[in-house]
């Protein structure tokens, strides 16, 4: 077995060992052992209600992603292409990005009421800003010589956009999409913690209230695995595009 496959495995083993040590030190009231968590996750996996909740989260997350990209990407590209617009709006967008959005939850609830739309709105306010900011950065960092070359070659604006600007800006835009999609998932889950009667976030808050440590750990592990796999996939796509 070579190092590329061995090292991550070693890391996983080390993480599980550390988890077990933490469990021994902190006791079963604080965290569940790796084995107990896995057993709980397997039991949950056989419960149709778990998959119903996961489906509810997935649906809200899907809407949040689509909306974040549909709003953030055109906004970022349009603003990024114009210097004054960029200088005006970038600090505003970055300020929005850094607000602890969890405190806005009462406002979101008052506007959207309990339910799906509040969850989606929560996901969107988390996801849209990184996507827009990275798109602005991607357009800004384009080398001016690319545009000059396009002009020398007499490319039409549309040809310039599709065959010069888009490929050049794509890697950074993709980084933004990866971070934005992650943030949208985080936002959706946080939304479910407060504003929902369905979904994995709701399972988490109920487990927190009833102090079911194994449930918290099992759902968290599930989320960590899903987020990790999705991130690794998007990262692989990103790396391949950068290689070209």
């Amino acid at each position, binding site marked *: 077995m070579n190092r590329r496959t061995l*090292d991550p495995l*070693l890391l996983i083993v080390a993480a599980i060992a550390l988890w077990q040590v933490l469990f021994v030190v902190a006791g079963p009231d604080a965290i569940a052992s790796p084995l107990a968590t896995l057993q709980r996750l397997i039991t949950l996996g056989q419960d149709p209600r778990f998959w119903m909740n996961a489906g509810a989260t997935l649906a809200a997350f899907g809407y949040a992603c689509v909306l974040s990209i549909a709003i953030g990407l055109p906004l970022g590209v349009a603003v990024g292409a114009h210097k004054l617009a960029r200088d005006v709006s970038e600090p505003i967008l970055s300020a929005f990005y850094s*607000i602890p959005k*969890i405190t806005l939850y009462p406002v979101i609830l008052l506007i959207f009421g309990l339910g799906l739309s509040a969850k989606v709105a929560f996901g969107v306010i988390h996801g849209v800003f990184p996507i827009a900011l990275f798109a602005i950065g991607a357009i800004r960092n384009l080398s001016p010589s690319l545009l000059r070359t396009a002009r020398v070659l007499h490319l039409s604006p549309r040809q310039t956009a599709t065959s010069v600007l888009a490929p050049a800006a794509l890697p950074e835009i993709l980084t933004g999409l990866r*971070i934005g999609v992650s943030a949208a998932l985080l936002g959706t889950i946080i939304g479910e913690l407060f504003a929902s009667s369905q979904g994995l976030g709701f399972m988490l808050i109920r487990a927190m209230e009833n102090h079911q440590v194994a449930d918290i750990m099992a759902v968290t592990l599930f989320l960590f695995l899903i987020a990790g796999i999705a991130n690794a996939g998007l990262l692989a796509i990103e790396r391949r595009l950068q290689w070209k």
Partner: protein
Amino acid sequence: MRISRASLFRIALVLLFVAALEALCRTGIIGCLTMIPPSEMVLALIAIVLHADWFWTDFAYTVRNLVAAAIASILLGYALGLLIHAMPRMRRALEPVLLSYYSVPTFVFYPLLVVVFGIGPLSLIALGTIFAVVAMLMSTLTAIDRIPRGMFKVARITRLTPLQTLVHVKLPAAAPHLFTGVKLAVIYSVIGVIAGEFIISTAGIGRRIAFAYNDFDNRTMYGMLLLVISLVVVLNAALQGLENRLHRRWVRRT
């Protein structure tokens, strides 16, 4: 001081937005149960600062916790960053985990922290730290990556000890990129601490917002929200300004 055209436009845009919000609230298109007019938010905040007996205790509680979390995450992130940078194999294996760190809601660990540290400042500081530390760690990795190789050669030629290399070469040469990490760590500490207060806490600004919401006390809620947002906006702008200056100086020097 000269104000640039972009700043003028930005101020105008924000004012326009606030004015529009004010108009929508005053005409009742946005109901007063949903949102109070921005001018009322300012008045509510002033009234709280001047008259509410809880304000300064809660404010000091939050500020103290987030300063502690910021310092802890910066120091810990820097130390871990140095350590992981020195072990390339470890780093390659860890990188995917670090990159997906911010897509997992760290806040779900908060109940566990409460069990370990109890409800109080320690669990809030711990939450802020584990939320912010990875941003500092990643920035430290990039910052050391970007130090020109020649600098290490010079350090070796002049026979600096590892500690001297760290203090005289690694720290100053990496400073601008390290500061990006400091900026993120501060902002993330604020988010972590206030979010923690919001979920479970006995005091603090986040707790007050959650309280006010449960009591349908919109004036207090929006007043405190205004405070949090202004605090973060000012902090963000100040850190961003500092970062830009550091980067400019760095570009000039090299």
